[in-house]
């Protein structure tokens, strides 16, 4: 790619100064030298036939006497005229260039504006393209997931029928294989349905309301009771704010994060799960912290990907879509979600609600309302 030319505006003034200055100096020099040589010539004329003190015949070449001063004057006159001539010629050249410079600069400026506009345009187009691509991708995911449901249902169905109707005539090994096919189809079906949910989330419009997170979290914790059965779980739920968010989606966020925390702290007794708020750069940050098995932060970029898991399914069940859903919901709210974890020392998930919350603050300030 061609590097854009530097636009040095002061060079114009500099050139003008040099040309004008050079020209004046040359003219003055010429006038002075002309005057000197004229005076010398006059004097020489006056003293042509007399031997003056000032005139000394320095050399005689073939009988021609050469007047030193006269010669010097002549050389200087010719030289100064030549110099002046050169300066003028050069000056004209520079002037011409200097005059054309604004055009060049102008053209350059225009070119740069054009380039910037083009870049902006292409940027906008790229954004639009990406948006379209994203939408297309989502539509694609949605339709593929839909279309996959039927064949998976058929695999699951006929495998079950085989097992039910023909079990007695099937060798044990074949029965085992069929069972595996059935389980795999079941998993695939779950994944496809989760994908559909996720894709639907992208299409769903946010229904933002002022939501008390404390009661929402309390509900979710109650909902989790079956998962905590037979376990020692210490809940530390701090004061949580009212926030502008979609309550149904926010409940999903807490459900996924808390269920995650419960799942990965299963080897701990007691499992300590902390839910609270903190502040970062003036922004409310909500966190869900556990003292579970954690993970190595070098894999943290994989955490929010669809079907990405850091643990094998045999160890901790799951379909690898919970955190992807959390991220999708938070992003939809204009917020951010991140994690801090250490292997064997638990994990803390943080999120902000960003734009939805900011606009709500403004609205609240405008209404002078407080909750």
């Amino acid at each position, binding site marked *: 790619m061609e590097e854009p030319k530097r636009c040095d505006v002061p060079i114009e003034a500099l050139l003008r100064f040099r040309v004008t200055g050079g020209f004046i100096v040359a003219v003055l020099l010429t006038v002075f030298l002309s005057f000197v040589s004229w005076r010398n010539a006059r004097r020489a004329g006056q003293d042509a036939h007399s031997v003056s003190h000032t005139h000394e015949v320095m050399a005689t070449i073939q009988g021609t006497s050469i007047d030193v001063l006269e010669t010097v004057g002549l050389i200087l006159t010719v030289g100064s005229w030549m110099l002046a001539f050169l300066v003028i010629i050069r000056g004209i050249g520079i002037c011409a260039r200097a005059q054309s410079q604004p055009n060049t600069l102008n053209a350059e400026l225009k070119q740069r504006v054009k380039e910037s506009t083009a870049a902006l345009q292409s940027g906008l187009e790229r954004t639009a393209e990406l948006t379209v691509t994203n939408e297309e991708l989502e539509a694609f995911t949605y339709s593929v997931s*839909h*279309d996959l*449901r*039927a064949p*998976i*249902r*058929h695999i*699951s*169905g*006929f*495998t*079950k*029928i085989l097992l039910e109707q023909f079990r007695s005539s099937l060798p044990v090994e074949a029965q085992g294989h069929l069972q595996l096919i059935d389980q795999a*189809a*079941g998993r695939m*079906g*779950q994944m*496809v*349905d989760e994908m559909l949910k996720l894709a*639907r989330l992208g*299409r769903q419009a946010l229904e933002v309301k002022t939501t008390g997170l404390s009661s929402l979290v309390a509900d979710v914790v109650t909902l989790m009771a079956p998962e905590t059965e037979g376990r020692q779980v210490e809940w530390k739920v701090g004061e949580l704010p009212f926030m502008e968010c979609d309550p149904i989606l926010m409940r999903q966020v807490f459900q996924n994060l808390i269920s995650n925390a419960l799942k990965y702290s299963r080897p701990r007794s007691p499992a300590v799960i902390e839910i609270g708020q903190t502040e970062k750069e003036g922004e409310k940050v909500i966190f869900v912290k556990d003292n579970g098995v954690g993970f190595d932060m070098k894999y943290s970029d994989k955490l929010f990907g669809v079907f990405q898991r850091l643990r094998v399914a045999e160890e901790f069940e799951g379909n690898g879509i919970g955190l992807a859903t959390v991220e999708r919901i938070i992003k939809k709210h204009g917020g951010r979600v991140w994690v801090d974890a250490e292997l064997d020392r638990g994990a803390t998930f943080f999120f902000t609600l960003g734009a939805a919350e900011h606009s709500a603050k403004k609205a609240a300030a405008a209404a002078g309302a407080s909750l």
Partner: protein
Amino acid sequence: MNPIRDILLVEDSQNDIDLALYALREDRLANSIFIVRDGKEALDFLFCRGAFAERSFSHPPKLVLLDLKLTKVDGLQVLKELKNDSRTKTIPVVIMTSSNEERDLVEGYNLGVNSFIQKPVDFDQFRTTVKTLVQYWLVVNQPPPTDSAPTMRGRPLS
């Protein structure tokens, strides 16, 4: 051809037909099913025309299980014609589809569908679903009296 069956299954996938029949066979309901494979055939059956000209409006099916993705005439169009005709609008229609596209849901209910079911991927759930809804519509639910004029009974469509 003048089949008097309780259930009309409108389904273009043979696999889904087989699975539905398998599920219903357990409850000995498979014999009460009549199967059509596309939307046009469904409309012919319901409006007693074409190949089904000998059928009578006085013996409507007690339940229509309707897939949405159909050839010739799609499921929602079948539903629309069915619910827009006083002779057929009281027949319970259950949409059974792979998709649960919101557009289809909204459109389906606007057109007056009685129930909307997404076919579960898992066969056990699919089987339970089919059995439950057939049980409900054929056994639990009171069908509209067939001898009275449906136009008087059915609420006018807005």
